[in-house]
């Protein structure tokens, strides 16, 4: 399917193809998550391509973070299948414990409200991310305690890998400071670096641009694109900042009230009337005045300042 076709084609709600035609890395099948009577995610299906940035957008309470928590095992989905297909091996994420999803399926994530190890140094944060590899190298601590085996070498390599990521997020100078002492923007970058240190094949980012100033936000875009290009992994992104979403995403999935309402390329989603309606909070049947659509289009396109953020670029 050509790109031009994809941009105009209307897609089914249960469509699980990647609009660009890339190989699907993650396939979400009929995912439903209920909390008591509340249905936070309702029968959502989509696919995220390998070496692509897939953004999940939607108003507050649309179920985006719940979807992430299902993907990374923090919640067990009520119904649904989550398949991660990397290098020929399939992992069914809904069956795995949270830590095994990172350990075996190599899905990394960051959190909406940053979760670092504040009393440990920046470098140590990155070393903890390489825990499983280092555990093996230290002979599950037995050899490491006795000082035999290749642990020293493995540790040196782990430090080098950490240094590489510190360079990418520009934190080499703060490597030995406590993570809790870093400014907010740096903590966000460190969390991404930490997730990358665990060598994921799919990286899930929960609002990485929240609270960043325009300059930091632009740097973040560059970093995410670099990760995609250089390391060829899939990125899944929850974001409210449309300038980030529209600029770097290859594929956008729109959720509203737990349901998927749109799915396609940025160009397609930008023009999808259902999306515009959801963002305006209109009833399904109401006609949207054309001038409102005109006003909203640039917001969704990310070319005009998002009124809620107050700052433009």
């Amino acid at each position, binding site marked *: 399917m050509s790109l031009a076709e994809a941009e105009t084609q209307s897609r089914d709600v249960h469509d699980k193809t990647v609009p660009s035609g890339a190989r699907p890395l993650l396939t979400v099948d009929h995912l439903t998550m209920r*909390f008591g009577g509340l249905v936070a995610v309702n029968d959502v299906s989509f696919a995220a391509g390998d070496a692509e940035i897939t953004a999940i957008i939607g108003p507050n309470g649309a179920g985006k*973070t719940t979807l992430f*928590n299902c993907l990374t095992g*923090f919640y067990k989905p009520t119904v649904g299948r989550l398949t991660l297909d990397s290098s020929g091996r399939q992992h069914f994420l809904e069956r795995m414990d949270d830590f095994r999803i990172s350990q075996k399926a190599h899905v990394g994530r960051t*959190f909406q409200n940053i979760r670092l190890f504040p009393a440990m140094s920046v470098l140590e944060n990155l070393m903890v991310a390489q825990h499983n590899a280092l555990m093996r190298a230290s002979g599950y601590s037995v050899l490491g305690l006795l000082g035999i085996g290749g642990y020293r070498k493995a540790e040196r390599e782990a430090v080098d890998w950490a240094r590489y990521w510190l360079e990418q997020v520009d934190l080499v100078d703060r490597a030995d400071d406590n993570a809790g002492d870093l400014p907010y923007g740096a903590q966000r970058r460190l969390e991404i670096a930490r997730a990358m240190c665990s060598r994921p094949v799919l990286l899930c980012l929960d609002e990485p641009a929240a609270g960043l100033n325009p300059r930091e936000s632009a740097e973040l875009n560059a970093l995410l694109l670099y990760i995609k290009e250089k390391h060829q992994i899939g990125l899944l992104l929850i974001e409210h900042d449309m300038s980030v979403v529209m600029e770097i995403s290859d594929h956008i999935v729109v959720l509203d009230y737990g349901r998927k309402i749109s799915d396609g390329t940025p160009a397609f989603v930008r023009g999808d009337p259902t999306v515009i309606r959801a963002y305006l909070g209109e009833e399904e049947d109401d006609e949207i005045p054309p001038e409102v659509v005109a006003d909203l289009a640039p917001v969704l396109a990310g070319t005009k300042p998002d009124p809620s953020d107050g700052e433009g670029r």
Partner: protein
Amino acid sequence: MEYFVQQLINGVTLGAIYGLIAIGYTMVYGIIGMINFAHGDIFMIGAFIGLITFLILGVAGITWVPLALAIVLIVAMLLTSVYGWTVERLAYRPLRGSHRLAPLISAIGMSIFLQNYVQLLQGARVRPMAPVVKGGVTLMEADGFAVQLSYVQILIVVVTVALMTIFALIIARTSLGRAQRACEQDRTMAALLGINVDRTISLTFVTGAGLAAVAGILFLVYYGVIDFYIGFLAGIKAFTAAVLGGIGSLPGAMLGGLLIGLIETFWSAYFTIEYKDVAAFSILVLVLIFRPTGLLGRPEVEKV
């Protein structure tokens, strides 16, 4: 059969006492999410204040039992509440927002402090008290075994049921109860809506201590002996009751207390009395393994 009925009566009596203490644990856990290790010792202090008040009334010549009991209950509830309030104010309130272990360590420190405080001031030896409420009724008799329902047991169950009813009404109907439930749900939001969170938490400790004081007095009149160490085991068992019932749930605490009382009594009656403390503990571990939310508790959704 008669033996069984007797144990049932004894178990319900003991369970009533545990239930009263368990409410204090469950309320505090519900509102600030910590185990108040010092709560067992608050119960012990309540028992001591009750004992002292009984003796003073004896000196003053007030010997009409219903009046004496009423005065003792009121005085002990009031004075023990001061302890509950002070413990929260000194040891827990400054720690809100501190790291995870701090309030727990502070609580265990407070517990050690209170035990030794009472030991130093009131002596380490057990304090026996002459029975206040004597007598009872024989419910049934067979094969030389009489099922006794003593007046003390009736008193304990009646007082407990009355207090729990009043307490349930307070939580359900008054603004204090509403504030408490609001703080349990979301403390920040409650504060934004103009609820004085500090005061609500203080009042939670005060009511918890008041109920523990009643439990202490009931323990005193039931067993007739107390010492500075009674709070330790009673505390663990009451906490087990709270976990069994579902921590955070008030009806759960009452139910859990009742069950723990029954289990402990039957265990002592039919197995071994030496290991009766092991019973409660084994239940705690089993509940934590198989049903961490307890009988009436709601599953806790982890905030990620």
